[in-house]
Every structure is written in structure tokens, then in C-alpha cells.
């Protein structure tokens, strides 16, 4: 059994002046090394939940324990942010300097890390995201996907145990999207970093270890992606989508084709149909 790195217990969050809870009694454990995807409509509470994970917001009810710390004061918040990094949606909103490597060093400089240590950590982080050759470049000359990789490098330089990606691929083109997702996957597999991947894209959610669907601030569905998506009607009713192949499988089943329950990919569908022919 792996260690639990995030422990959310009955977590609630209410924005000031709001009449309803943005996050409504959510209880969720994330295991160390897990790749967890969170899906949900706009306003379902998933971004608010993300902010509770790295103490950008503190819960108004319940508790969130991250890497052993339940933040109670400002110092704890800094500790939580060191172990849980966050990559946001808009690459242009999280790049603060005019040179790529300076941007990556920003967090470390604020922590007062010695210069030699900063140098080696930044080099390592840029290398890890495949952006070493752009170390001296201006972020304005980079594509959206490259900017997100720089943002990831800035987080990596802090050596976090967890990275939360809050719709980090929403503004990217298909190549940038594939790149950033593959990077998160690699950091997860090779470096054992726990990933919380918040997205609108079903294809991405389908590739996670586990999937949580949020609706109205609560967890509506939870499980392995294929078992969640297999509840096609529920998922559609929640305003979401299922991968196109699962929709096709649903249609075929309705017309009497005996397909296994959990077909999700082109490959699986092709194999199943060839056996029926």
C-alpha cells in the first residue's frame, strides 16, 4: 500500500458573499505517485479544490493534509507550496520575467536559495522539460506549449512531490497539448511525482490512473477512467463528454452488437469487432 500524500476530509469552501459552497464536503485521498484526473463543468468546483491543495485558499470547513502538513498559518502555507506546485491555465499569466531561466529561478530566489544551488536546479529543471536550449530566450518568442513547459520547469526547480495542473492544456494547440500531457506523464512515471490533472479533455482524463468527476462542488463519480466513462448516460448528463469510441460502443450495443463493457480506444474497438466478424 502506497502512502497517502493528499488527504482531504470533508473539505468545504465558500467564497465571500456566495450563497452556496464552491467545494461541498469533499473527501478524497491521493496516493503518492498517483496520476489523478479531475473532470467537471465550469463552476463545478474543481479549480477551487485545486487551490485548496496548495494552500492558495484555506478550507472554510474540513481539512486538507498535504505531504503531512495541515496548513494552519502562513508558514505552513509556504511549506505546502514547496511540496505541491501548481501550473495554471494561461501560460501568459504565470511567466513573470523576460528571460526563460530567470523565470524558472523566480521561486527559488524568493526562498533565498544560494546562487550555485539555483543555477544547478534551474539547469536540471529546464533539461527535464526539454527547454535547455531556450534558457536565454525571451518567453514572448515561445509557443504556448513551450511556455507551459517553462512554467513546469519553474515548479520543478522547487522539487515538489506533487504538481497540480489546472487546465494547463486548455489554451494550447493539439501538439502543445500532447507535449505538456506527455511531460506530466513522464514526471509521474520516471520521477514519481504525484500528478493532479484538472482538464476538460476526455482524452486526457482517459489516460489517468484514476478519475474524479466533480459536479456542484461534490464528487459525482470516481474510479478508473474506463469504468467512469462506461456510465455514458451519467457522464453526459453531468454536462461532460465521453471519448468518441465509447459513444460508438454505446450506439453499437443499443443496436444489438455484443461488445465488452469497457472499450475505450480505437485499438480495443478494432480488436473486438474483428472477433465478431
Amino acid at each position, binding site marked *: 500500500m502506497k502512502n497517502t500524500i493528499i488527504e482531504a476530509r470533508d473539505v468545504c469552501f465558500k467564497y465571500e458573499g456566495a450563497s452556496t459552497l464552491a467545494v461541498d464536503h469533499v473527501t478524497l485521498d491521493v496516493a503518492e505517485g498517483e496520476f489523478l484526473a479531475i473532470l*467537471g*463543468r*465550469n*463552476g463545478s468546483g474543481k479549480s477551487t479544490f485545486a487551490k485548496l491543495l496548495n494552500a492558495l485558499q484555506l478550507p472554510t470547513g474540513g481539512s486538507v493534509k498535504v505531504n503531512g502538513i495541515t496548513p494552519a498559518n502562513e508558514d505552513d502555507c509556504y511549506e505546502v507550496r514547496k511540496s505541491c506546485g501548481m501550473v495554471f*491555465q494561461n501560460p501568459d499569466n504565470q511567466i513573470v520575467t523576460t528571460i526563460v531561466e530567470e523565470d524558472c529561478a523566480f521561486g527559488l530566489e524568493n526562498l533565498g536559495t544560494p546562487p550555485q544551488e539555483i543555477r544547478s536546479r534551474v539547469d536540471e529543471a529546464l533539461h527535464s522539460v526539454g527547454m535547455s536550449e531556450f534558457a536565454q530566450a525571451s518567453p514572448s518568442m515561445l*509557443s*504556448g506549449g513551450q511556455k507551459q513547459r517553462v512554467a513546469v520547469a519553474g515548479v520543478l526547480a522547487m522539487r515538489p512531490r506533487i504538481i497540480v495542473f489546472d*487546465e494547463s492544456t*486548455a*489554451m494550447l*494547440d*493539439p*501538439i*502543445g497539448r500532447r507535449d505538456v500531457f506527455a511531460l506530466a506523464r513522464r514526471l509521474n512515471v520516471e520521477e514519481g511525482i504525484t500528478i493532479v490533472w484538472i482538464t*476538460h479533455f*476526455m482524452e486526457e482524463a482517459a489516460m489517468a490512473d484514476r478519475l474524479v468527476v466533480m459536479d456542484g462542488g461534490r464528487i459525482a463519480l470516481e474510479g478508473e477512467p474506463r469504468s467512469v466513462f462506461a456510465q455514458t448516460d451519467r457522464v453526459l448528463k453531468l*454536462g*461532460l*463528454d465521453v*471519448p*468518441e*469510441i465509447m*459513444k*460508438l460502443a454505446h*450506439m*453499437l450495443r443499443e*443496436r444489438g*452488437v455484443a461488445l465488452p463493457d469497457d472499450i475505450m480506444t*480505437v*485499438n480495443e*474497438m*478494432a480488436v473486438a*469487432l*474483428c472477433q*465478431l*466478424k
Partner: protein
Amino acid sequence: MPIEVKKLTHVYMPGTPFESRALNAVSLSIQDGEFVGIIGHTGSGKSTLITHLNGLEKSEPGVVFVNGMDLGEKGADLIAIRRVVGLVFQYPEYQLFEETVAKDVAFGPTNLGLDADEIKRRVEHALKQVGLDPAEVSEKSPFELSGGQKRRVAIAGVLAMQPGILILDEPAAGLDPMGRREMFDLIRGIHDSGTTVVMVSHSMDDVGRLCDRLFVLNRGEIAYTGTPAEVFVHDNRLHAIGLDVPECAKLARRLREAGFDMPEGIYRTEDVCAAIIGNLSGGK
């Protein structure tokens, strides 16, 4: 003919180290009432192309024509052109600026010098076209609205100009699946009411579902053009230039290779489903 482009070339920052050729001798024509998709990955020239279509970028004379007007001509009437061609940028909600929704939508028509009654009529009509209730939202601040509603208000601002041609750059970017479906329904409705629509996208799924005809741009040139089915036949080449065909088109190819009888270029989920059923019942 509403839009005619003849060998359009566009070079950014000519004569500098950053010189780049965004468009290279692109020719195309779009007929009245069509629903056309322009698709290509980032840097393929899509955005540069559409800014030429309403005169934001200026070409040489004799290259870009809209309703017979030559946009490159000296003294071309840009106001007349922008009344004909409405352009909705990516994330248009960032362009909202007025105190109230009604004032924001009225901004364009007011600048046309229309009288107050006509402006009011147009604002109400445009808000209805995007599925918002004028009585409910008109006096709200646009910044009180949700992301999807803000985007609708921004589109209403363009529709209030009553353009015959509507160009949208990635209108569904960043929306959730339900928001995307609603946005596409809305655009389909605008097209059905007689507006020519040009939609820029990098999602083959979306353009495949909506458009009559596609232009695939790659490195500033038109790589493929035709109906979605005609374009999706080139699935391997499309993948190589950073675009993906819809999942069901991929499945159709796999099945065809495995001996199923699947029509070329088939991509709609319903069509693929029907073809598979045909194969399974025919084989028995």
C-alpha cells in the same frame, strides 16, 4: 462571390532576423451561405489569413476581394468592409469593456452612427441570437457573467453589426464540453439564418461535425481542401503536419485494413456505426 483570395503572401517583420513568411501564395474562394472551416496547427497562418479578410492586415491591390470590393486598393472603404465581415477573435470576452452588457453590444452599431431605436433593436436581436435574454442581462455588468456568457456577449457585439460573413477564431477554446456543444449549436443557428460562416479551429472533430468545406493550412500554404470526408482520406499526412483526424475515422481505416467494407473518408460516429452494423449482419 463574397470572398476571393488570389495568391496572398504575408511576411512578418521583413528584413529582420525574425522575418517569417506566414502565408505563401494562398488562393481560395468562399461562396455565399457556406460554412467553411480553416484548420491548421499554431503558426500555420490561419490567424494571419483571417485578419486579411476584414482588412486588419492590408495586402497588395488585386489580391483579397470581399463582395467585389478590393481590400488592398488605396482608399478601400474599410468601414464598409467591416460591416460585411464580422471577426470574432480568440477569447473575445477579454475585449469586453463597457459598464453594461447592452452598452458593450451597442458599441459597434453606435459607431456606425445609427439612431437610438435601431441600436436598441439590434442589441436585443443580437443578444437573442446568442441565446441570452435581453431583459435579464442588458443592464448587468459583463464582468458579473460566467465565462461562457461573456463570450456570448462578445459575439453579440459582432452580430449587432449584422455582418453577412462571420469569421470566428477558435470560438470554443477553453469551454467545457457542454459549453462547446452550446457554442456550436449557436453558430449553426447563425449559419442557418443565412450568414456565411468561416470557423478557424485546430480540432478536426469540431470542423468535421459542422463545416461543409475545409481548408487545411500548413506552413502558410493550403495543404488540402474539400469536404471533411475528402480531407480525412489523407489521415496519415494530416497526422504528420500535427493534426489528428476524428477517432472514428481512425477506426474506419483500421477496420478497412482488417477486411471490413468501410466507405473512404467516413468519419461521423453515426455513419461509422451504420457501416459496422452493415458489415456484421452481412457476414452472417
